[in-house]
């Protein structure tokens, strides 16, 4: 066990309770919007609740992170405190991996079990009795009941946009590492340059992904509603996209902090956390590329 340092225990803070109200209100509002929408209402009081919640959340995030940053700059964070942050962030990323695992699990299950069974293969193949004429294929270009879940006209091949996107994300993982080394060597200019490059790569990725979605919805009729293929496709890529956006925001905040002169060669956990997150997003994409697009 290493030597024990002074540990900063922040006193009374109003942020957690504001965060609670924020999150509760946001989600309550979201639920209200969905329930009203499901019942065919054209307007919903949920929007107002939702917006208030979001504003609270935004206020909270600025406030909370603001005070953590101030504490850090005031030198209150001992190396031990730093390790707490590191453990916290690592396990948070672990939990995110498990979240994606659930969706990958759904994808494997559908491909390997459910769809073949419905098509008459395997242990529960007699299920095909209920879906006359349905044949198992993957990607699923027909569904057991097309009147409810119209099948897509086609799917997105891996070697076009997805390949470009893969290259973009892999390079961004590379650029962020270069930036990190620059930070450690205290080369601020180089740091800003490479971090900026990472952000640009990220933005292009998001743009191309949006392009791909538009193509899927408008030309291929590949939607959330087009059966299990569409469901897994959009949920996996969609959640990944959301994480990319979140990661990009983190990186942007880092860039702003760096231009304000924050971080030093040996104290820059905020930056590292964002970088870790970015690598995680990248790895998830590689999995996606292989399992969703290629095979």
């Amino acid at each position, binding site marked *: 066990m290493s030597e024990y340092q002074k540990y900063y225990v922040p006193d009374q803070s109003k942020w957690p309770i504001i965060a609670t109200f924020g999150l509760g209100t946001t989600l309550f509002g979201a639920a209200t919007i969905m329930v009203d929408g499901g019942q065919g209402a054209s307007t919903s009081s949920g929007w107002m609740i939702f917006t208030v919640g979001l504003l609270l959340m935004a206020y909270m995030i600025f406030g909370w992170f603001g005070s953590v940053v101030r504490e850090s700059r005031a030198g209150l964070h001992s190396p031990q405190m730093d390790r707490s942050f590191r453990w916290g962030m690592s396990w948070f990323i672990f939990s995110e991996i498990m979240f994606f695992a659930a969706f990958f699990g759904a994808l494997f299950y559908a491909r390997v079990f459910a769809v073949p*069974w*419905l098509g008459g293969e395997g242990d*529960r193949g*007699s*299920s095909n*009795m*209920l*879906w006359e004429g349905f044949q198992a294929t993957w990607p699923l270009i027909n569904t*057991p009941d097309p009147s*409810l879940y119209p099948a897509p006209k086609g799917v997105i091949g891996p070697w076009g946009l997805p390949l470009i996107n893969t290259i973009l994300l892999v390079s961004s993982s590379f650029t962020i590492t270069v930036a990190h080394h620059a930070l450690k060597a205290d080369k601020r200019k180089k740091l800003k340059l490479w971090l900026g490059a990472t952000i640009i790569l990220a933005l292009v990725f998001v743009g191309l992904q949006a392009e791909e979605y538009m193509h899927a919805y408008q030309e291929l009729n590949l939607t959330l509603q087009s059966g299990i293929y569409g469901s897994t496709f959009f949920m996996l890529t969609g959640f990944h996209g959301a994480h990319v956006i979140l990661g990009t925001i983190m990186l942007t905040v880092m860039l702003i902090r760096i231009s304000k002169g924050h971080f030093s060669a040996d104290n820059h956990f905020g930056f590292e956390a964002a970088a870790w997150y970015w690598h995680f997003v990248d790895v998830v994409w590689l999995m996606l590329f292989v399992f969703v697009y290629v095979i």
Partner: protein
Amino acid sequence: MRVRAKRALALCGLALFPVMSMADWTMNMSPGVTQTSNDIYGLHMTILWICVVIGVVVFGVMFWSIFAHRKSRGHKPANFHENTTVEVLWTIIPLVILVAMAIPATVTLIDMYDTTEADVDIKITGYQWKWKYDYLDDEFGYFSSLSTPRDQINNRQTKGENYLLEVDNPLVVPVGQKVRLLMTANDVIHSWWVPEFGLKKDAIPGFINEAWIRVDTPGTYRGQCTELCGKDHGFMPIVVEAVPQAEYQTWIGEQRAAAEKEKELTQKEWTMAELMERGEKSYQSTCAACHQADGSGLPPSFPALRGSAIAVGDIAGHIDIVVNGKRGTAMQAFGEQLNEADIAAIITYERNAWGNNVGDMVTPKEIFDYKIQQQQ
């Protein structure tokens, strides 16, 4: 000493007396009437006894310590901890017991999964809240739903012997033959269980699960749906009659003839009174579970039909919701479940009962035409 023992015995006997005098204090699984259920019973008893023996040994040591090594008796604590031999032993021994247990279980399980070479195929479909039995080899089928009167459930009438375990049309199977059951469901997951057959299998919408039974003794066997399936999950029993082969054949013949007869009902000319009478009966057995006997429903989950805009409105809309149901709600497509005569009768009844005095009527022919038209 001996007197004491006798007295203790007598006391035990007295304590046990009420238990023995009431037949209903059933405490154990029944061995059942199929080979499978007997195998399961065997497994159950074996593992039960294994657990009892382990329990006696472990708790024996514990109670001995509690008794002998208490501070109030002045016992001084020892200070030992850790002992590799003991620790290895109490890892290995349970492991061996478990392996011994797993072997017969594996054999039984594999046998249960073997649905090949069946003599009779029956498809079982779970609905909210009734069962449908389709005899695939003979091309007929029927619904089976709870026949216990609502008054018994609501304590307005004394409860019968087979309270909640009785149905209008039981499933009939031949004795001594391997019957393959194909289970599925129409809406949510149900589960078909008859304890005496040792068979419980989930009925899953969109998929078919296979299972089989071979009943050795004729008789009536009762079970229940065992997967939570909504409001009346507790009210969808299963009754199976196992009959000798000859009797089974006669029964099949009757059913096929009756199925033929049903078709003629559509062609018959119906009067309003006939429709209302048939309609009331069918309504009570099919629709009342949700919309209630007096049409008041259970809003907001189940709308009232008394004064409902649909039930007193345009007749086409009324036919549509009954025949096609409404997807995503408990309101099923009854077009597939009921014959034209029943649908016509029910609609007529709904439009004219409980003060819904619309005055019009629908004939089975009209329903027939409506269905034909829909198929195009």
